């Protein structure tokens, strides 16, 4: 039975956008943890760790996100011998995916700090960990914020693919609304507008932070 596309549908879409944001937040936290590990591996003085970090990044970035979603969705039950919900599969897959990108971004930020800063730390008798903690990271964080906010936009957009494993977020809700109302153009314009409303402010913020950083230097 086909019903009209009405204000209530926009309301439902907005409600579903919460799950888009929730998945983004989870993926950002999970991806952040992976990312820190990867970034540290890639700047570590120990070659095998650097190579392992690079391999992780290359493999994750060389496979489409859809591939990861399905591999985790069907692979986790095999590994754990239990059915996993689309929540678990999506969170794991997105964290895994975001970790590679955040790791690369943060590695770049760590490496943007001049070598002499490391050497100065070493000259003061600090170990690798201490140099990182007291000298490098405090400076790198300032550089890292604009691209990290920029990646958050990518992440919000990418959560739309969670729809394919049945995760009900904004895009999936759009598909469901379309199935009920058969107003694809209106529905997807509304969906796109909600994504835009979430992403555009972040894009602008990232840009402004970057400009401020450039002026400060």
């Amino acid at each position, binding site marked *: 039975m086909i019903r009209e596309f009405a204000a209530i549908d926009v309301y439902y879409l907005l409600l579903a956008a919460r799950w888009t944001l929730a998945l983004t937040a989870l993926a950002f936290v999970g991806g952040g943890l992976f990312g820190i590990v990867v970034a540290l591996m890639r700047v570590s003085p120990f070659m095998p760790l650097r190579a392992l970090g690079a391999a992780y990044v290359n493999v994750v970035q060389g496979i489409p996100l859809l591939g990861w979603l399905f*591999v985790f969705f069907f692979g986790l039950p*095999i590994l754990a011998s239990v059915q996993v919900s689309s929540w678990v599969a999506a969170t794991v897959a997105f964290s895994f995916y975001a970790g590679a990108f955040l790791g690369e971004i943060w590695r770049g930020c760590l490496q943007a700090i001049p070598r002499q800063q490391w050497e100065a730390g070493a000259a003061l008798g600090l170990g690798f960990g201490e140099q990182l903690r007291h000298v490098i990271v405090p400076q790198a964080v300032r550089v890292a914020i604009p691209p990290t906010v920029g990646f958050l936009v990518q992440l919000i957009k990418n959560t*739309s693919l969670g729809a394919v494993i049945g995760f009900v977020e904004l895009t999936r809700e759009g598909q469901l609304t379309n199935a009920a109302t058969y107003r694809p*153009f209106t529905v997807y314009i509304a969906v796109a507008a909600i994504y835009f409303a979430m992403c555009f402010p972040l894009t602008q913020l990232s840009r402004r932070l970057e400009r401020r950083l450039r002026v400060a230097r």
Partner: protein
Amino acid sequence: MNYRFNFRDIWAQTDFILEGILVTLALTVVTMLSGLVIGTLGAAARVHGPRWLSTMVAAYVEVIRNTPLIVQLFLVFFGLPSAGIRLDAMTASMIALGINLGAYSTEIIRAGLEAIPRTQVEAGRCLGLSGVQVFRHVVLFPAIKVIYPALSSQFVLIMLATSVVSQISAPDLFHVASIIQSRTFRDFEIYAVVSGIYLALALAMKLGFAAIHHLAFGRR
């Protein structure tokens, strides 16, 4: 873990997988070309065009870059028919992917054009070069050098992103995977194999672009 992996059913579908790979590659090449054309025109409009055109292109870039590809694809494939424009899955995919890549490459190419200092152009004119010569020797080649790394990694990203067209059943590699999944019920195996194929394609593209970079810019 007492799952028994079975890849035999998947090897039996090699020809079908190959067809999918060809469709994915074709989509990628068409998208790269159209994205490059849109990007070049867009960047030219942004940098040299009249105010209204520049604003319109800026709006296009922002709208595309702040909405997901899959929604853009759904709008073209499911949305346009209500405006009387009915497209098959492949055409809709090419259009959506081209529009998407066009926005990203507009930004990349614009950055390249803006990276050439105005004083360089003036210096070229002072040396008696014609407008075309200045464009060719002073603007174009250095700009391509600036653009190349970002653009080539964007091309790899769009190749991976073509997998999204499986959601409107364009017969690309990922769609082939879902058909094989429903035929064999070997869901993990098929997606693992197909992911490996994408990885190989991505690495091959990266190597190819690196080789071209080396040939074109290496000796300078």
